[in-house]
C-alpha cells in the first residue's frame, strides 16, 4: 500500500471526507436558497443584466454566493480527487492529484470571488 505521508498537508483521510460531507450539507441548504431566489421571479427576468447586478450588490446574497462557491469548489474538486485517486495509483501521481485538486479549488474560488467582489463593489 502506498504510504500515506506523501501528503505534505498531513490531513487524515477521515478529516478530508468529513469536510466533503460537511460541504455537501452546507451546500444543500444554500443552493436551495440560491435556486429559489431565481425562481421567485420569472426565469428569463432573473437573467436580466440589471437584475443580476442588483443581486451582487445585495451584500447578504453576495456573501451567500461566496460561501456556496467555496463549499462547492471544495466538495467538487475533492470529489474529483477521490475519483482520480481510485483510477490510478503511484506516489508521484497521487501527490499530483492531491496538490492539483487544492490548486484547482483555489483557482476556481479566486476566479469566482473576483466576479462577486468586483460586481458587488459596482466595478463594472
Amino acid at each position, binding site marked *: 500500500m502506498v504510504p500515506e505521508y506523501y501528503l505534505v498537508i498531513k490531513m487524515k483521510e477521515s478529516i478530508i471526507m468529513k469536510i466533503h*460531507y460537511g460541504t*455537501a*450539507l452546507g451546500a*444543500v441548504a444554500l*443552493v436551495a436558497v440560491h435556486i429559489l431566489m431565481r*425562481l421567485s421571479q420569472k*426565469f*428569463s427576468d432573473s*437573467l436580466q*443584466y440589471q437584475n*443580476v*447586478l442588483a443581486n*451582487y450588490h445585495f451584500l447578504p446574497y453576495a456573501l451567500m454566493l461566496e460561501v456556496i*462557491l467555496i463549499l*462547492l*469548489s471544495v466538495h*467538487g*474538486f475533492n*470529489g*474529483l480527487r477521490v*475519483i482520480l485517486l*481510485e*483510477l490510478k495509483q503511484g506516489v508521484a501521481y497521487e501527490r499530483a492529484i492531491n496538490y492539483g485538486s487544492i490548486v484547482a479549488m483555489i483557482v*476556481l474560488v479566486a*476566479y*469566482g470571488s*473576483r*466576479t462577486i467582489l*468586483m*460586481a458587488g463593489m459596482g*466595478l*463594472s
Partner: protein
Amino acid sequence: MAEQFSNREGIKGMINPTRYGLHRVAYWLQRLSGLGLLAYLIGHIYETSTILNGKAAWNNMLSLTETPGGHLVLVLVIGMCVFHTGNGIRLMISEGGKGVGKPGQPEYPYRASSLNSKQRLCIWVSIALAALAMMYGAGVLFGN
C-alpha cells in the same frame, strides 16, 4: 506480479452499472452527476464572470446559453443536482451506519440487509424527484 496480468476490470468494470443491482446504478449515477455538476459549476462561474465585462458581454453570453441547447443542459443539470442531492443525503446517512440494517444471523437464501427496501426506495425516490424536477424545469425553460 506485473499489473497487466492483474486482471483488474478497469474503468469499464467500474463504470458498467448493470449486473449488480440498484445500489451499483446509484453509485454510478452519483459519480456521473457529481462530475457533471462540477463541470457545470466551472462553466457557470465562467459564465457569470462575463458580467464584469459589461452588458454587451453579458448579453452575448446569454445569447449562447439562452438557446434550446443551453436549456437542455440546464434541464440535465437540474436532474443531476436533484439526484445527487437526494442520493447524497441517503449516502451520508448510510455511510454513518444508519439505515443499513442490523447485524443478525443471516438466513439462507441470503439477502443482504444493507440492500434493503428502504435503501432501494430512497434511490428510486431520488431518481423520481430528479425526473420531476427536470420536467418542471423543462416547463419553466421551454414554456414561454
